[in-house]
């Protein structure tokens, strides 16, 4: 049992590395990823998890080892060695985190860029929309995640207007006129959500897509994503918006192209039967004050929802 200590250290280092690499890939902490961007975020998280596990094991290992090895023995009344520092060592452990965060920053930047976070059309805050922000081509500029630079994601997106009100999400499909309390989209086609809020702050969160954007009264925000897995996923409000904030949930259904067409059909007919609603969609624009007036009161959500819809995205 006389293994030299540097060999032991080496073995400990190898084990630590292997455990970190394994755990970084197999932590099982994330729900399924339903888009390519989500997979990228997961890879970033796994990378961070690998490093974090390594550092965790290293530091906790040092602590546990110290507690066992360096605890004061009975009868020993001496002090420890008077070591006040070690410049090379200190430079080393300043350099390590510096390098790590440098790599991490570049990696995150790349992922964020791929997600469309730096799309000039979607990543600017133009302030409250007293004057609606336009770029030179007259397109609206919003805040959030837009089209990723290299991908085709932006081509022919399905546009859905999302309005958050206490305590519901209302989805309007400008191309078909469908209005719904649930979000339905076809698989593999980019979806562009134009997000706004009718009363207080809300946040539109799709955990399975790893994306979130606050819905801010008086401001445009945007999320763009391309679902690649059929299924039903939760839509959650992630910004405190009042007592029933926890109940502000609905679902996102990703259909095959055919099923989606069917859903649109079903809903267009349903709405044609209710003429008041389709008329309501064309009413004139009203001021922000009226637009925001009904908040705070726990009105019947349905009635309020319809009132909100009259004004949503008609600027």
């Amino acid at each position, binding site marked *: 049992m006389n293994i030299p200590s540097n060999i032991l250290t080496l073995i400990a280092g190898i084990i630590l590395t292997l455990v970190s690499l394994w755990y970084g890939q197999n932590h099982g*902490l994330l729900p399924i990823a339903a888009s390519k961007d989500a997979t990228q975020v997961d890879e970033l998280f796994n990378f961070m998890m690998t490093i974090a596990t390594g550092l965790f094991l290293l*530091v906790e290992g040092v602590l546990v080892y110290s507690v066992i090895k360096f605890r004061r023995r009975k009868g020993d009344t001496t002090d420890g060695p*008077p070591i006040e520092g070690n410049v090379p060592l200190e430079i080393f452990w300043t350099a390590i*985190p510096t390098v790590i965060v440098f790599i991490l920053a570049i990696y*995150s930047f790349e992922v964020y860029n791929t997600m469309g976070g730096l799309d000039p059309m979607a990543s600017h805050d133009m302030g409250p929309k007293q004057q609606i922000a336009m770029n030179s081509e007259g397109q609206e500029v919003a805040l959030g995640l837009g089209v990723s630079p290299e991908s085709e994601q932006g081509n022919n997106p399905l546009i859905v207007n999302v309005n958050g009100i206490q305590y519901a999400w209302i989805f309007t499909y400008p191309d078909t006129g469908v209005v719904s309390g649930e979000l339905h989209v076809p698989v593999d086609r980019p979806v562009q959500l134009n997000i706004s809020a009718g009363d207080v702050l809300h946040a539109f969160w799709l*955990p399975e897509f790893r994306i979130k954007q*606050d819905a801010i*009264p008086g401001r445009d925000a945007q999320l763009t994503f391309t679902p690649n897995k059929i299924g039903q996923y939760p839509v959650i409000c992630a910004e405190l918006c009042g007592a029933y904030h926890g109940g502000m*949930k609905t679902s996102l259904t990703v259909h095959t192209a055919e099923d989606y067409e069917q859903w649109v059909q079903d809903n267009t007919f349903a709405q044609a039967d209710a003429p008041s609603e389709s008329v309501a969609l064309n009413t004139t624009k009203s001021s922000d004050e009226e637009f925001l007036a009904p908040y705070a009161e726990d009105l019947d959500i349905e009635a309020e929802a319809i009132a909100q819809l009259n004004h949503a995205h008609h600027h």
Partner: protein
Amino acid sequence: MTTSTEPKTNPIQDGHSSEHRERKWQDYFTFSTDHKVIGIQYLVTAFFFYFVGGALAEVMRTELATPDPDFVQPEFYNQLMTMHGTIMLFLWIIPAGAAFANYLIPLMIGAEDMAFPRLNAVAFWMIPPGGILLLSSFFNGAPQAGWTSYPPLSIVSGKSGEEIWILSILLLGTSSILGAMNFVTTIFKMRIPDMDIHSMPLFCWSMLATSALILLGTPVLAAALILLSFDLIAGTSFFNPAGGGDPIVYQHMFWFYSHPAVYIMILPFFGVISEVLPVHARKPIFGYRAIAYSSLAISFLGLIVWAHHMFTSGTPGWLRMFFMATTMIIAVPTGIKVFSWCATLWGGKLNLNSALLFGIGFLSSFLIGGLSGVMLAAVPFDIHVHDTYFIVGHFHYVLFGGSVFGLFAGVYHWFPKMSGKMVNETLGRLHFILTFIGFNLTFLPMHQLGLQGMNRRIALYDPQFQTINMICTIGSYILAVSTFPFIINIVWSVFKGKKAPRNPWSALTLEWQTASPPIIENFEEEPVLWAGPYEYGIDTESIDGNESVEEMLAEVGAES
């Protein structure tokens, strides 16, 4: 105020004329200007509010044991959540940091009192009214917009509660500013002549960094809250979008203070840890200057990272990238500290008493908060977990695992000095073990909840999260139980504890050179700096060398 900076001849003469002024227990209930009394007033008040805030947390966790809002109404849940957060931050951690600063700074630098004793008392006496005011809101509709109080929700959900919240934060913030002015002046002006800035205990460095943040940040918070107050009662529209105001501006102003505030809450306890570890590990602090300057670096960087709380809010893409970079850089000075503390323990002779156990507990939990913090800086990841239970897990690891563990380390370390009595180590260790288990059980699983899709600030949640929430709730009950050994220990020790010698730990900082508890004038005569604050293992060979320390003191005293 000038009297205190005069040469300290008077107290010395006082000290020699054998009759000291005596400390009466009534002093603790008066407008005393003695920094030691004020320190203890701060500490006891803070602990009172800790128990209140803790009780509110237990009610919340009981509600969250099951998915339905059956134990309390959702609206009441939001009030509990807002009050818990506000109390824990503004009435527990920040005053507790000020408690240590008040008690220790003058003793550590050999001064007789703070630079502005009266101002100091004023600062303390703003806390109880602020706290009572805040608690009184429970009787007329407590605030319910979270401790962040974002408009428009905060201006439409209950006027009186919200206004009380604003007023009490303004009061507590002012108190904090007055305290910070005092700390800075005292540290710069009142050190004994021999003590240059690099032989000052690291706690003083950390209080310099803290005070700078308080002085720069708090006025901005005050401004935001005053404007919010106008929106609330005068119907102006600074932040109210309904009248053309901008709610995002509030968020910027709020976080311009409140990110630095998280360092205001942790830096003092970084300082405490830097004091506790070397004494009980019997080794010099590893890398004094690195630790000292990294406090300043953290303080500076802490001022330019605030929008990382707004990555999913009204922050344009390029700014998200900027704040990601600055936030990540903070990992460097923080890493330096953690590594230096570990290196301080390495090779020492660890006395595993309550103080050091909490110190090591601090290191091991703060580490987790720090690692998840770096993850959160990565914008693509933060977008997923922002406003979820991952965040709740993260900030409790920093605030509880960091600040509160550091605070308990400090309490056990300086209790003999403050009270003149020793604590019961067995009860102290029991307190540590229960706290450590309860804490990790409560907050570690929360990370998973957040990653999987549970948002925060909710009273009702999806049934799939029930099991993990139940674990968290059980953990929180263990935490509640863990406070009993602590309270029993402290109360028992104050009255029945073994008498503490002047320097029970054979520590080298100046506060241990005077009696326990210190005499009213702090020192019999101006203390002598005969060793650096952390020179363990050099002059003294033996740790039970109380006599030798005193002999040495006498010698040096005679020489000078």
